[in-house]
């Protein structure tokens, strides 16, 4: 399947949901994972969760009785998207490193 880039938000949301988590948990987890760099805003997260649910990349878990907070978890399809994204990121990394290194080497030789 042709695969385009995931947004940073979606990538980190999927990665967080390897473990079941509720909305606020995802926000905290993503901030922690990225050392405070990525701060998901609540409205943006809400939209992303709904789209991911529609796509079937995550599911809402049946809630505990006395908790209103909904928990979500990644599906097999979601994991597939993560793996594909990792391949894409690897390609970006390898090309970037190789080309910048070659340029550095040429400079050193001349």
């Amino acid at each position, binding site marked *: 399947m042709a695969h385009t880039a995931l*947004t*940073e*938000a979606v990538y980190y949301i999927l990665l967080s949901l390897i473990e079941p988590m*509720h*909305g*606020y948990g995802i*926000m905290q987890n993503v*901030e922690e994972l990225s050392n405070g760099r990525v*701060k*998901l*805003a*609540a*409205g*943006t*997260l*809400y*939209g992303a969760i709904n789209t991911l649910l529609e796509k079937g990349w995550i599911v809402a878990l049946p809630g505990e009785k006395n908790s*209103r*907070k909904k928990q979500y978890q990644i599906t097999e399809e979601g994991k597939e998207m993560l793996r594909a994204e990792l391949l894409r990121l690897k390609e970006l990394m390898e090309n970037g490193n190789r080309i910048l290194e070659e340029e550095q080497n040429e400079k050193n030789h001349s």
Partner: protein
Amino acid sequence: MRKTIHKCIWVWDFDKEEKWLNEMAAKGLALVSVGFCKYEFEDCEPGEYKICMQMLEKNVSNPESQKYMEFIEETGAEHIGTFKNWVYFRKKTSNGHFELFSDNESRVRYLKRITNFVIVVTVLNILVGAYNVFLACTFVSPVNFLGLINILIGILGIAGMIRLIKKRRRLEQESQLFE
């Protein structure tokens, strides 16, 4: 101590409204309720709260809007009040960062929604205004101020629309480079 401020802010200046509310919070006045051109504040520690507001797609009583508001509250924000489709939240700054949109895509989508709303308001005002002025001209009735007010709002609306569209363009341009 409660303090009420009457102030009318145009829909297209929603970002200025949010900025003003946050300036008030920084000074130690936290928004506690909203109404038509009416804001009520209560004393708070200066800088205790960050305020965010948003125009919802559907009426506040709609189940989808309710679900959304619940979700925002679950992230540690407090629901302050609503006026029409506008909803106001606050969060203690000590409880962490608070914003409703964190990427250009969702900001652009939101701006589009507001722009569409402003377009409808503007067109309606101009149509009604033109009709009233036309009536005033033909029936030699006393000068119809209402019609002129409609047209004035329409003109302001056009200026607001241009402002919103420019703002969106800037964001869209940025998203060609950055997510």
